[in-house]
């Protein structure tokens, strides 16, 4: 017995309206490929370049609780701001973020990362200095690599000290695309 898309959508809408969902997610189209986007009541919790939810849901459930459900409405705010960003109409994000379950060092690095302006780049070492750990460039690199909310937390703006792009969890092509979009390359 196939569940019609209409019935499926009604259930998902009602679940969100009744506040029963710990984490909602959907796949959002973008110029750098489909993005898996997840948000809780606290805010945006994850963006992934791997649009297949399978690998993500267990992880989200561990962070927020088992009521993880696909629901376009949960990520409407993020979808809108991402669309504007990719259209070049938005230079900063106003979304609240769900950074639950991250260690304090990671959070302080991500907070500094969030201050790196649109269209500019910084280095791993500079970011390490700004959190008061000037020798922790490598640890900062690890935080960038594991960044749960790329694009919005702009780890693509962090490059090596000689200006080389170094790496990107989503692939260097995407890093180049994002920096070009912002006019940084």
């Amino acid at each position: 017995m196939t569940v019609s898309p209409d019935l499926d959508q009604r259930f998902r809408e009602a679940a969100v309206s009744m506040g029963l969902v710990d984490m909602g997610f959907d796949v959002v189209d973008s110029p750098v490929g489909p993005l898996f986007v997840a948000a809780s009541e606290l805010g945006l919790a994850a963006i992934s370049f791997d649009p297949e939810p399978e690998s993500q849901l267990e992880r989200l459930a561990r962070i927020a609780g088992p009521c993880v459900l696909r629901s376009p409405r949960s990520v409407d705010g993020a979808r809108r701001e991402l669309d504007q960003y990719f259209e070049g109409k938005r230079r900063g994000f106003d979304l609240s973020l769900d950074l639950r379950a991250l260690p304090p060092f990671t959070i302080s690095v991500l907070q500094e990362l969030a201050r790196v302006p649109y269209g500019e780049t910084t280095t791993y070492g500079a970011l390490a200095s700004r959190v008061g750990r000037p020798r922790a460039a490598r640890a900062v690199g690890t935080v960038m690599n594991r960044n749960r909310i790329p694009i919005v937390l702009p780890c693509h703006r962090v490059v090596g000290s000689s200006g080389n792009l170094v790496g990107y969890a989503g692939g260097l092509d995407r890093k180049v695309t994002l920096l070009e979009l912002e006019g940084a390359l």
Partner: protein
Amino acid sequence: MPPFEHFYLEHRSEVLRLLRRRVGPERAEDAFQETFLRALQAYRRLEHGHHLRAWVLTIAGNVAIDTLRRTRPQSELAETGADDDRPAFEELAPLTDGLPPKERAAVVLRYGYDLSYDQIAAVLGSSEEAARQAASTGVRRLRRRSQ
């Protein structure tokens, strides 16, 4: 516990099939929605992910009974039920039969599901004030009916 999405995708077809058989195609969709909302509401209180299929089919069975009950005459209702241990909101269903739909939904959501008025407003697509009004008018109407 598997994420609810996995659980839902795995069992939704079977639940819909059961409900169509038990309450007919016309009422199966509402019953389907109610089944999975009840499941979602209880899901995070489950201690493990065993027997989830049996669990959701039981919920669907209860929803089917409630759905059929709602269409039976009141006198019959008085004789059945009352002595089971199901949650209060299921008991409310037959009581609130006959109320206008918005009032009925507001009363069930407020006194059965214990939702706040802003949550009820979201479900009904109305303002918080309108939700409060609908619940209180519904309750007044029920009181008058029971006198």
